[in-house]
Each structure stands twice: as C-alpha cells, then as structure tokens.
C-alpha cells in the first residue's frame, strides 16, 4: 500500500517561510534606502553649512572649505554608490523570487492531484470485490499473481507524486533561506548609515563618519555575498537531489507493467 497522503504541512511551512523572508527583506530594503536618503540629506545640509562658514572665514577659509567639502562629497558619493548597488541587487533578487511562489502551488497540486487520488486507487485495486474469491482455476491464479504487480506500480506512482511535492517544498524552503540571508547584511548597512547620520550633522565629524560608515557597509556587503553564495549552494544541493539521484524517477519504470497483452 502506498504511504498515506501527506498533510502538506511541509509545503505550508515552506510557503510561510518564503512569504515571511520576502516581506522581511523587502521591509529592510526600504528602511536601508530611507537611511541612505537621510544620510545624504544630512551631509548635504552639512556641506551647505560649510559654504556659510567659508564665507565667514574669508578667502583662506573658502579654499579650506572647498577642499574639505570636496572630500566629504567624494566620500559620500562612494558610499552612496556602494549602497545603491546593494539595494539594486536585493531588489533584483526579490523580484526574481516572486515566481518561486509557484513552487508552493505546484507542490500542493502534486499532493492533491497525484499523490492523494492514486494512493486511494491502491487500496481499491488491491481489494477484490465481493465473491471474487469464489472464482478459482488457472485464470484466477494468474489474476492473483498479476494484480499485486499493478498495485505496486500504483504505489510507485502515488509515491512519485508525494516525492515531487516534497522536493518542490524543499526547494521553496531553500529559496526562502537564500532570500532571508539578505536581511542581516541589509540591517547592518542601515545601522552603519544610521550611526553616520548623527556625526555627519557636524562639519568636523562628517568626513570621518562617512569613512567609518563606508568601512562598515563594505563588511556587510562582503557578508551578503558570502551569505548568497552559501544560499545558492544549498539551493543547488536540493536541485541536485533530483538531477543526480533521480530521487523520484528511480521509483518508476519507463513504462507501465502490462498485465494484459491481448
């Protein structure tokens, strides 16, 4: 007899994880973008103040202020470029992650359309209708020998439906883990930008604050790429289960066993 139809809990869990990870990362993506905008505004304000200070300082002050202002401006441009690139990458991953939700739909389909109905067929096929056991002779004995072969093939087909559902759910869960790996680096980047906002409000602190923020952002970016690489490796492992091990097809023959050849 085929294994009992799964309750789809693993599929539900994978769907929940996929939704939660996408929402969590999208939310943090927005917050990090906001932090960048706020820092840029603050630095612009500081540079504007620097212009006022420079006029008060005469010609020498203007030269110093321009030199200092250019350095702040360049540092902020570099930091902005790095963060914008990360935000674009995350956005791309989130957008490309949307079709992954169809794995969840399909996983339920394999459970509902194949595993459950074919599992039910197994019992029906294996159980003789009433009084068939009063039939005897060679035709009956041949029937007794051949029906279990059909039942076994039915069980294999039912199991394939269940395995396919599980594989798709596992793949969706691996994708959820991949997406959620973006969260911590994004959170850290927002934190680094947020910390810089306070110090960047003063003319004296701006350059150092931006430089320090840039270093922290780079650390987070490196961590993000490392996390993504691990995530891709995990997804690839799940895929290879199907590709290499023929996890599902291994249980099935190339054709249905023939009981009748007339």
């Amino acid at each position, binding site marked *: 007899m085929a294994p009992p139809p799964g309750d789809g809990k693993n599929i539900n869990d994978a769907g929940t994880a996929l939704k939660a990870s996408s929402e969590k990362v999208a939310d943090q993506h927005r917050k990090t973008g906001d932090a960048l905008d706020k820092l840029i505004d603050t630095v612009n304000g500081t540079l504007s103040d620097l212009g006022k200070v420079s006029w008060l300082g005469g010609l020498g002050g203007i030269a110093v202020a321009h030199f200092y202002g250019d350095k702040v401006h360049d540092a902020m441009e570099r930091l902005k470029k790095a963060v914008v690139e990360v935000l674009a990458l995350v956005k791309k991953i989130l957008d490309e992650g949307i079709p992954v939700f*169809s*794995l969840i739909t399909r996983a339920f389909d394999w459970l509902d359309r194949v595993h459950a109905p074919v599992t039910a067929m197994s019992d029906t096929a294996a159980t003789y209708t009433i009084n068939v056991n*009063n039939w005897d002779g060679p035709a009956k004995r041949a029937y007794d020998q051949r029906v279990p072969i059909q039942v076994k*093939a039915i069980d294999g087909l039912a199991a394939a439906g269940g395995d396919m559902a599980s594989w798709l759910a596992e793949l969706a869960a691996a994708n959820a883990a991949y997406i959620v790996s973006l969260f911590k680096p994004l959170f850290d980047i927002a934190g680094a930008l947020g910390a810089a906002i306070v110090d960047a409000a003063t003319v004296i602190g701006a350059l150092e604050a931006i430089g320090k923020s840039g270093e922290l952002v780079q650390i987070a970016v490196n961590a993000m790429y490392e996390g993504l690489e691990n995530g*891709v490796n995990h997804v690839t492992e799940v895929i290879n289960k*199907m*590709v290499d091990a023929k996890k599902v097809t291994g249980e099935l023959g190339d054709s249905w066993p023939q009981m009748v050849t007339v």
Partner: protein
Amino acid sequence: MAGNPDETRVVKQALLDEAAKWSALSTDMTAVQHQVGDLALQVTAFFTNNPITAQAAKNAYDGVWHLVEKLAGEAAAEFKQIDEALHRAHDEYEATDGKAAYDLSRIYGS
C-alpha cells in the same frame, strides 16, 4: 463449487463487479493524467541566481512530470484492458459453466 448453478451465478457476477472496479479505476486514472498535464512550471520558478542551475532544475522537473503523465495514461489503458479481460473470463466461465480449465491466453493474452 464449479458446476453448482448458484455458485456459477455468484462467480459470474463477481467477475463483472471486479471488471467494473477496473473500469472505474481506468476513468479515475485518466482524470489524474489530465490533471497532471496542467502542472507545468516556468524556468523562473527555479530561480537560483544562476540560469544554468535553474534550467537543470526545470529539466529534472519536466522529466518526472512527463513520465508521470505518460505512466498515468498507460495505467488507464491497462486498467481498461483488465476490465475487458475480466469480461472475457466471465464469458468463458459462462460458456463452460465454470467447469473447464480454459486457455489463459484468451483472457490475458500471451
């Protein structure tokens, strides 16, 4: 047992009932085959940030998907043939009044 008119009648009815069971299974399996036909997935569903891996995943999926669809069709056809074989068994049983050891190939083929 064989030769007893009541027993013969019971067995003949049982063979028809068993045949009807396989006919119904054939119908059910045909429904499964049709439902499986709708289970396509786009390559974008196998998003991995790596198009080659995604394509490999889709190919693996498609391989199983098409095999299951094919097997469901073959199963439905086979179940229908079992239904017909049981009808032939019924007819043989009726013709011989349940007494003869008839030729199996006439029921199941070679």
